[in-house]
């Protein structure tokens, strides 16, 4: 195919940016998700409400709006020196990664919470009854089971995150979808260009799903 010959390198560069943006956003999202979960477990009402409000805000506003808000809105509130630095150093990637990470951080917090809720209260009581402290019962009884339950939603959330990085093109991040649109509008080979990027996205998502399945198999509790 002529398109791969002429633009293959450009597609791969877009793919590399998509992967880099996904990895950075994913790590940030996990940190955000864990922080939110921990804060919510403190049993301080005010903190719990703050976390719930934040999660609902993140989940109920479209990711595209978050990206615009961070790139054009929040960035303007930063000190001038930091703004100039971001403008000179491709701030579009940083702000897009932050917006995507906060968005999926909220989902990850919810996924972990649903895992925690799947463990009956009785187990906690039993753990305390045999003399484990709160932290120890979390560490040895509750979390190992809860995180296993949370693997499937976390994997599908990760695939969603990869796909959401395509929205970063609206602020000029040169990722796979930006490159695809660019090539399609240069060559007018819309079908071929999007066909190639579809294949690349499927490859990425499939790899992630495979990794998730492998992880779930590896940590499976025998007999369940």
């Amino acid at each position: 195919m002529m398109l791969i010959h002429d633009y293959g390198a450009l597609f791969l560069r877009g793919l590399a940016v998509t992967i880099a943006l996904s990895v950075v956003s994913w790590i940030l999202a996990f940190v955000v998700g864990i922080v939110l979960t921990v804060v919510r477990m403190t049993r301080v009402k005010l903190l719990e409400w703050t976390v719930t409000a934040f999660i609902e805000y993140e989940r109920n506003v479209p990711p595209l709006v978050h990206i615009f808000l961070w790139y054009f809105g929040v960035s303007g509130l930063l000190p001038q020196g930091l703004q100039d630095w971001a403008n000179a150093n491709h701030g579009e990637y940083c702000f897009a990664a932050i917006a995507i990470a906060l968005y999926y951080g909220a989902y990850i917090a919810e996924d972990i919470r649903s895992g925690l809720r799947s463990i009956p209260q009785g187990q906690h009581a039993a753990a305390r009854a045999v003399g484990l402290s709160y932290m120890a019962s979390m560490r040895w009884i509750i979390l190992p089971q809860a995180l296993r339950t949370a693997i499937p939603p976390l994997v599908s959330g990760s695939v969603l995150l990869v796909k959401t990085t395509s929205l970063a093109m609206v602020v000029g991040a040169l990722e796979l979808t930006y490159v695809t649109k660019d090539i399609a509008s240069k060559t007018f080979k819309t079908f071929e260009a999007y066909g190639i990027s579809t294949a690349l996205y499927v490859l990425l998502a499939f790899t992630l799903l495979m990794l998730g399945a492998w992880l779930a198999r590896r940590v499976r509790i025998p007999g369940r």
Partner: protein
Amino acid sequence: MKYPAKALMSVALLAGALGHQVASADQLADVKARGTLVCGVLGAFEPFGYTDPASRAVVGYDVDICNAIARRLGVKAEIKPVSIEARIPELQQGRMDLLAAGLGYSAARAEQVDFSHGYYVSEHKLSVRADKGYAKRDDLAGKRVSFTKGGITEGFVKSSVPTAVMVGFEDTPTAFTALAQGKVDAFSVSEVVARRLIGKLGANASQFKVVDPAVGKETWGLGVKKGEAGMLKSVNDALQAMEASGEAQEIFDKWVGAKSTYETKRSFKIEPIKG
């Protein structure tokens, strides 16, 4: 074996249904029989094609050109808004007869659609913040330049200021906002659009300026589907008649010339585009 045969048949039916609309003999004859010329115009591209807030109709330079051509073909123009990315596929798939959508001539585009005579010449220039000390185009070497994706301006900047770092946005207001917020050092667009955007800022307009020389200029043609020679010829005849009668000059003055806020000069005549 039953199932694949059924699937094959439904695919064949689907292909037949999709192929149906393409099966017309001569577009010009179709247009005349139908009594309407379906004209693709950019819907948010002041002053060439945009929705007039008072009448809620799409108006502009491109719309007037369409109407004038339709009148000369003896039919009514039906204005259909299109997006920059979709305009060429829409024409190729026969969803419209004529594109008056700020379609700048390029050799690559000419392989996809036939161009009429040039009916507008647009110069692209860089806009900068007045306080940054950029006086001329070449001061922007190595700087960040925003542009609207899918247009022709990207290539102009790449050839006239090769070291510029290009940052593409989905639409023109967003690309301009990037300049206004200092996210880029310059914004490349046609001069008319640049002056309109800056003019909209009112009292803050003096914070921006347009630097010379132009990064490039493009001649706009009307887009006609490939292989429709009859259509192309009557469109060109209509355009030439408009030039001769002075109607083309009137449309120019009304939208971008002396009678508009842009006050640009008409430095071109309607003539075949020199590829």
